[in-house]
């Protein structure tokens, strides 16, 4: 099986966000980046598929040189090959998905895995866009995945339950937390990743469709009142919720 995982490089979750001088993006000073957490589940799923069915694994990321760090992490986890589509000009989902789709069309994989979402812009667009560009079926937000004789059985998360979905390869899958337990890169894996080459290519980029016109910090919340320090606070808490907040 020919398996490709698309991965993103995002600010880590501890990042204190400051609006940058352009007023449209974050101040990069002191920001650490990491492999997008959901993409770890996608990488793990790819490795498990390969272990079960054989085949090749490849990771692709579109971004600047910094994305190599994230590609290396995937290689350290056990992915065999990496491609960097080198571009720093866009961050629009449509443009990125188009470029990824063009690259993937040339590779014609049996299975394309994504994380369900990037935790920087929270778009949750790229897997669906790529699937549509390639004319492939897709299942998003997958928490259970099994492939047998070219048939893909999935469970995807919906509000208050799961949908059971069946499709055929080639297909696009986006991974949700709960799908698996991503492995830690082994020392051997980390060493091996250092010498694996990362192929670089220049993608063709279509102009973006979404323009950011401003970034703001959300209105800060004032700490409220401490109602009490033992169970004698309970009647007052209920009164406040009922009469002041009017939420119960």
């Amino acid at each position, binding site marked *: 099986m020919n398996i490709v995982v698309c991965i993103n490089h995002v600010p880590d*979750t501890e990042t204190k966000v400051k609006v940058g001088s352009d007023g449209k993006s974050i101040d990069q000073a002191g920001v650490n980046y990491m492999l997008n957490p959901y993409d770890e589940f996608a990488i793990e799923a790819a490795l498990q598929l390969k272990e079960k069915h054989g085949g090749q694994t490849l990771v692709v990321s579109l971004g600047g040189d910094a994305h190599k760090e994230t590609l290396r992490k995937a290689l350290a986890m056990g992915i065999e090959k990496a491609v960097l589509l080198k571009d720093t000009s866009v961050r629009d989902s*449509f443009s990125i998905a188009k470029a990824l789709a063009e690259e993937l069309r040339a590779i014609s994989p049996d299975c394309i895995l994504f994380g369900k979402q990037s935790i920087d812009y929270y778009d949750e667009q790229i897997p669906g866009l790529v699937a549509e560009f390639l004319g492939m079926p897709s299942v998003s937000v997958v928490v259970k995945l099994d492939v047998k004789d070219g048939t893909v059985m999935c469970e995807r998360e919906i509000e*208050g339950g799961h949908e059971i979905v069946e499709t055929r390869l080639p297909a696009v899958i986006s991974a949700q937390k709960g799908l698996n337990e991503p492995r830690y890169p082994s020392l051997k894996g980390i060493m091996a990743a250092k010498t694996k080459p990362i192929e670089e290519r220049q993608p063709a980029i279509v102009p973006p*469709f979404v323009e950011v016109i401003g970034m703001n910090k959300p209105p800060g919340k004032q700490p409220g009142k401490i109602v009490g320090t033992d169970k004698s606070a309970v009647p007052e*808490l209920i009164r406040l919720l009922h009469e002041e907040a009017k939420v*119960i």
Partner: protein
Amino acid sequence: MKILAFAEQREGKFKKSAFEVTQAARRIADKLTAELITLVIGDNIEHILPELRMYGANRVLAAQDTRLQYYSTTAYAKIVAQVAQQEQAMLLFLPASQMGKDLAPRIAAKLSAGVAADSVALRVENGDLIATRPVYAGKAMIDVRITSPIKLFTLRPNVFTAVAGNGAAIAVEKVSIQLDDVDFAAKVTGVKLTEGRPDVTEASIIVSGGRGLKGPENFHLVEKLADVLGAAVGASRAVVDAGWRPHDEQVGQTGKTVSPTLYIACGISGAVQHLAGMSTSKYIVAINKDKDAPIFQVADYGVVADVFEILPTLTEELKKTLGK
């Protein structure tokens, strides 16, 4: 100009988001003097369509087919995109629900449209529709303008409140779109629903528990309070990773983003990653024995005490107040 609103239903019942999306689209249609069309897709949906009129719909298009009993990404996307094209709708509104988030990119690719995902506010500026959306887990908000001719917006559930009005009469039209087997290339064969409590993303009240509960065996305290309030049960990542609670209850940066009217955090410290998922809740109550826990920085009402003391009392007192 025409605006197309997608009203989500499952199993012959509208989701609350259907009303939110319809009414939000109505407001924008009025501002832009545009015509609003509301689209409903499914099987056995005729009887629910009149409900939409209370939220400002007047032209309702219904796409019915027995094969649409369950959601289908490709079939639904085909219908929405074709209706948009036939009607020449320029603005499309969908809920940022699991269905809407799955559909939006498919439709966007078909119509070469930009998407403002998970919008929490909309405003008209010089004839342009500007959407505000949270990024970096709610640590910042961006205002975006879509530059493609056709524009898609997904609206975060629970944020655009829908208020039922009297409403005028509605005209229902049947949509006839040819569906082929390839449109069901990925096929939903069944749905497993977790019985009982609402989902965290849809609930108006959430009672969440963290490591302060000490073990999975104590979560009945959280569940009982939730049940008295008709609330959903949420959890911190610490307790999900420990296997005390299922993944779909996790609230936070790598869990669900929620905006209920009331969020009750029990024995949760309030790490940045947790706050990221719930800080837009209208009212936040924190019960934590550490007065310096960061959760108190965002709580409207705090109780600095032991959850094992507060939760049973709170549940009992609420039962009395709410007459249960």
